[in-house]
């Protein structure tokens, strides 16, 4: 059932396309264009608190008939459960979840659609690239690129997206980044096919994106709301009420949330605890 590391073998044309895209987004946010085009070395981390991987029998029970394929993107290895014929649907999990969150929905959806269930990089059984500076390898932009490359691996240049929680932020970034290439006027020959992902017949569905999207970049939420959200959600136990009362507490949460996967890395823990001092929370949407 499991296909071992059926990595993408990119030909020269695909590499050129990818380079064209990356060079573009590199002008706006990613400091080094090479960071997103080269395979990022996997940081060896120790996560003894994690339970052992579930057996294949568990996967077969939760996702009957699904096949797992490990897709090697330009920056990570993404395990994907997939099944079905019909229009392609990519379902993205949120935080702190994995693809398993879709187990009550995906099997039936696969009766009409080709359903793809990845673990976002750093989550579940995906690889854990080094963080980069400033955490560039865990920006939603990098995660969105993973998913575009993953779907391309399966032959889908256009697809539907269903996303939950932080996965919806990845989907949002996917929508904004890829059309932008076209808008910025790349020569047609260099335009990656993936810019059609969010145009034409494609539709993107955000499921619950829980308002995490309208994070308080301005007057969209009161500080007290953020404090309330932070406390009620219980997602960020390292943050104290005093932290939550600070003007940018919510922003810090956003920037750092993905880094929980590196919680064994003491430098990251310190960064998380530093609240607004975190370099990843300064509006990059990481």
């Amino acid at each position: 059932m499991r296909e071992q590391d059926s990595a993408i073998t990119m030909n020269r044309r695909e590499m050129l396309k990818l380079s064209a895209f990356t060079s573009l987004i590199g002008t706006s946010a990613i400091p080094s264009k090479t960071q997103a085009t080269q395979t990022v070395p996997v940081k060896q981390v120790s996560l003894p608190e994690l339970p052992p991987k579930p057996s294949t029998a568990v996967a077969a029970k939760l996702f009957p008939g699904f096949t797992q394929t490990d897709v090697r993107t330009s920056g990570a290895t993404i395990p994907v459960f997939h099944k079905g014929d019909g229009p392609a649907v990519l379902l993205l999990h949120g935080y702190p979840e994995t693809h398993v969150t879709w187990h009550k929905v995906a099997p039936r959806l696969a009766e009409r659609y080709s359903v793809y269930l990845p673990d976002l990089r750093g989550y579940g059984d995906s690889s854990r690239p080094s963080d980069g500076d400033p955490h560039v390898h865990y920006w939603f932009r990098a995660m969105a690129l993973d998913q575009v490359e993953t779907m391309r691996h399966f032959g889908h240049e256009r697809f539907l997206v269903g996303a939950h929680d932080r996965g919806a932020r990845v989907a949002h970034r996917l929508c904004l980044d890829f059309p932008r290439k076209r808008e910025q006027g790349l020569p047609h020959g260099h335009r990656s096919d993936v810019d059609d992902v969010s145009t034409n017949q494609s539709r993107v569905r955000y499921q619950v994106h829980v308002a995490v999207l309208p994070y308080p970049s301005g007057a969209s939420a009161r500080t007290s709301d953020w404090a309330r959200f932070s406390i009620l959600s219980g997602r960020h136990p390292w943050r104290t009420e005093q932290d939550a009362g600070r003007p940018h507490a919510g922003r810090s949460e956003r920037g750092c949330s993905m880094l929980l996967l590196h919680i064994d890395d003491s430098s990251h823990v310190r960064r998380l605890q530093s609240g607004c001092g975190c370099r990843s929370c300064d509006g990059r949407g990481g």
Partner: protein
Amino acid sequence: MDEADDRAGNKIVVPVHALWGAKGTVGPLWDILATWRAKAAATVTGRSLDCGHFLQEERPEETLDELQQFFGTA
């Protein structure tokens, strides 16, 4: 980078369907549809389900229906 896109007027160009849990912490705090409409140039629809944050696990049937209905119009 989201803020940069907001400033530049870059918006989602595909239809968006938003769902949220009525018993979650988000619905009471924000106007979900208005928020997405401000960030999307295309149609934005959506509604709340009678559950908390994890719709796909708490209300899988409704979530599935919403997915199929929305995707079916693609």
